């Protein structure tokens, strides 16, 4: 195949291999670069090159979206050099590799939880590293994913008329995920659910909390309309079954 005449790896010096690996990385062949960095560490574990090769291997595999390999190289770096200056970067790479694998909210959030734990570790163990700031930002975004999952399930029950199940899910968002962008919608859904049950004063309370904290949000306008009974007696949305089939079957929308 097209590989240039491969000089047997064993006989190449650590520096030569390291430079070849960097060349591969610059040429965009990140996975190949990762393999070469690993060779540096395998053949010359006690050289200075080995330590830098380990973190470079983690970065290359992350860049090539080989998240498992990236995590194992980063973890090995942390095993050997927990106190070195690249340790924060290694921990950050682990967090990023989980973060990039987060599924959309309608699917399993296992990797979201892994990402949250890894991001928290970056912030707690290396608070003054320059990765702590962006780790915090990504932490909030990942948190929003977990809240999104609760909302997804809440809407599933809301649409089917299981209002208590929906209410309990939306309360989890309001109580445990208030910092996320889902809180206004969660409060509006509570208004919808309580009104459907006929518990008007609870609906009013939820509307008040929404108005007090998120006056400008579009959700508050919806709640306001519902609560001032403008929207109450309208019969269910007028669109026909054909557009519902298009939205739900073709586009996979929830309503």
């Amino acid at each position, binding site marked *: 195949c097209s590989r240039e005449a491969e000089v047997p790896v064993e006989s190449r010096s650590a520096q030569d291999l390291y430079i070849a690996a960097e060349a591969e990385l610059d040429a965009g062949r990140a996975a190949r670069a990762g393999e070469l960095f690993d060779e540096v560490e395998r*053949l010359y*574990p006690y050289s200075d090159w080995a330590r830098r090769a380990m973190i470079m291997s983690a970065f290359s595999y992350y860049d090539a979206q080989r998240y498992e390999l990236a995590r194992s190289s980063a973890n*090995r770096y942390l095993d050997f050099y927990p106190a070195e200056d690249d340790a924060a970067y290694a921990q950050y790479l682990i967090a990023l590799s989980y973060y990039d694998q987060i*599924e959309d909210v309608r*699917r399993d959030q296992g990797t979201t939880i892994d990402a949250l734990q890894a991001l928290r570790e970056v912030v707690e163990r290396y608070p003054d590293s320059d990765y702590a700031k962006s780790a915090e930002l990504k932490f909030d975004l990942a948190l929003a994913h977990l809240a999104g999952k609760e909302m997804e399930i809440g809407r*599933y029950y809301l649409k*089917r008329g299981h209002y208590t*199940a929906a209410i*309990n899910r939306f309360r989890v968002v309001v109580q445990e995920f208030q910092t996320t962008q889902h809180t206004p919608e969660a409060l509006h859904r509570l208004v919808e659910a309580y009104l459907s049950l006929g518990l008007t004063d609870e609906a009013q309370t939820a509307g008040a909390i929404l108005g007090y904290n998120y006056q400008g949000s579009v959700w508050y306008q919806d709640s306001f309309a519902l609560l001032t009974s403008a929207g109450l007696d309208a019969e269910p949305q007028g669109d026909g079954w054909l557009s519902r*089939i298009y939205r739900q079957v073709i586009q996979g929308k929830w309503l």
Partner: protein
Amino acid sequence: QDAFQLFQVSSVTVEGNARIPADTIQVFAGLIPGQPVTQAEINAALQRLFDTGLFEDARIEPRGGRILITVVENPTINQVAIEGNDRLDDEALLQVVQLGPRDPYSRTAAEADARAIIEAYARSGRITAEVTPKLIRLPDNRVNLVYEVFEGRVTEIQRISFIGNEAYSDRRLRRVVQSGQAGLFSFLFTNDVYDPDRLELDRQLLRDFYLNRGYIDFRVDSAAAELSRERNAFFLTFSVTEGQQFRYGRSTVTTFAPGLDPAAFEALIDLQPGDVYSQERVDRVIERMAFLAGQNGFAFVEIVPRLTRNEENGTVDIAFELVEGPRVFVERIDIQGNTETLDRVIRRQFRVVEGDPFNARELREAEQRIQALRFFDRVSTRVREGSAPDRAVISVEVEEAPTGSLSFGAAFSSSEGVTGTIGLSERNFLGRGQRASIELAAGEESNTFAFSFTEPALFDQDLSGSISAFYREFDRDESSINTTSIGVIPALGFPLSEDGRLSVRLFVTQEEIDVDPTGVSPILQREAGTELSIGAGFTYTLDKRNSPVDPSAGFLLRFSQDFAGLGGDAQYSKSEALARAYTSILDEEVILTAELEAGALVSFNDSTRITDRFVLGGDSFRGFSRGGLGPRDRCTACGSGGEDIDDALGGNLYAVARFEATFPIGLPENLGIYGGVFADVGSLWDLYDVAGASGTVDDSARLRSSAGVSLFWDTVIGPLRFNYAKPIDSVAGDEFEEFRITVDTRF
């Protein structure tokens, strides 16, 4: 020295480290300079160093105000290899091993990996495998790690024997144990390789088998697996106590609350006194009772069957007691592992909703419904206490399976020749549980292109919407015509009752008949040309079989009705009905099936076309070739070019009864070969207009019958069926097909 002697630590120096920097070792040890340190703390620091797994040896000694840590680092692994393995390849074994290139070598980790390899061999049936890790030293503290493997022989199960069984033979019980293994998920390794977990499953299978046949006191006293001397074979022996067989006596209901009227519950009992007791039937009664209690708002009711045996007449009275159960609610249903399937596709399999009373039976049924989706390799549900003792959290863990399949099939039948099929289908389209498939079938006599898409839960209800379209060319020699048909069929399906389902459809099909130039019956010539039929129809199915896979009891009813005439040329009503019943004799060794199928095509303009009329023969009437029976237009040297005419015309009405018995023929079960005898009786008749036929056409109902034997063989490439059938009653002009092989491989 005494553990509390204090050492002043002014500084810490590290010697002997090569790869790991001194400050990192100091962090590992956790000794902070400037603080007094006791001997105990030093020992703890030493332990911490060893726990990192990076050091072969380490010493910490106070040297006049200074602490000296000397270490010998573990060598770094260069390569890991496995030698002497044959049955399990390197790749499979390397996945089981933790240590890899660039890891620090440690003896404990290497021994743990050796044990992991031995475990992998035990799993695949070779419990006598031995593995020894070997080190090959390389310059500058690097090593190669080699696992030397001695695989030993496969430990097969030579014989399964039973002690204490009188009611059922060893052969019959062996089938209970082995048939249980095939089950829904066939295990990776073959049936007869010993695996410890299966023993427990075998005991449960035996218990279920006996409990469903009246032996309520059945016990498996012991289940032992002995290894043969040469350690290559196992002898499994089950010693059982069957106890007495019981039949139903009186069944009563007692309830604890006024709101639960016993009579309503007694009406649910369908256990006829005198019938043989079956645990499965009793469980079903309990489920019906629990459902009725739930509907009356008593969600927390437990139904406990109390059995009172009277040995003399061998009957057992069952008192169903409805008692107040603990009030437990479902707090949350959490679904994990669904990396492809949407949460709602799984969640909608639950009838229970968050906040509902907890019901163990519904949980089991929901798990079965999720498994029946066939999207997952593994589905496991666990229940744990929620935020309070009366709250339960159900967590469902699934492991996604590949649901896309690219299938190449080949079916050979002596009359229709070889047809090859290529199919691309996805059972879980975009993770939404929708099914989409495209199929291409090409053969000597017919080519088909078919597409179909199904949404099982339209508007999130138990309402399946589907659309299918097809293009089909068919060369029908027995009527010397070839047809081209295109059609599109949208359909909706929904449940009418627990086992009854109705599917309604529209159809738009266009069929073109073109006729061989010479030697064709004038009747068929009249029907040549293209016709469009637009209509609607429905199919009602009532499935009361005891298992959809290989039924041995119960029955299936299917009635389908189509009306063509909402536009287009064809104007007809076409109805077909099928009733099939199953039973088994000789303690389920022989399965008997009896089936009656009939159809009627009624035209509103007194004319039908051969493409709409029914055709029998081949699989639908064994012993006769396709179109080999029914009205024919036959005469010799009367065609326009002087040649003979012999064309099957099909018929507007048909009725066929088919009887079949399948049974093992004494070969070992795992060969998958069994035999069958069958008989078909029936007729195809009635045409609207026989005037102008070249010969005399008899379209009255003339009885045909045939009998035969068949051989089934579940080969690796697919189910093979040999049929040999001899026509008994036939009519002059019928065409026969004594021998027919069909093999259908789809991979």
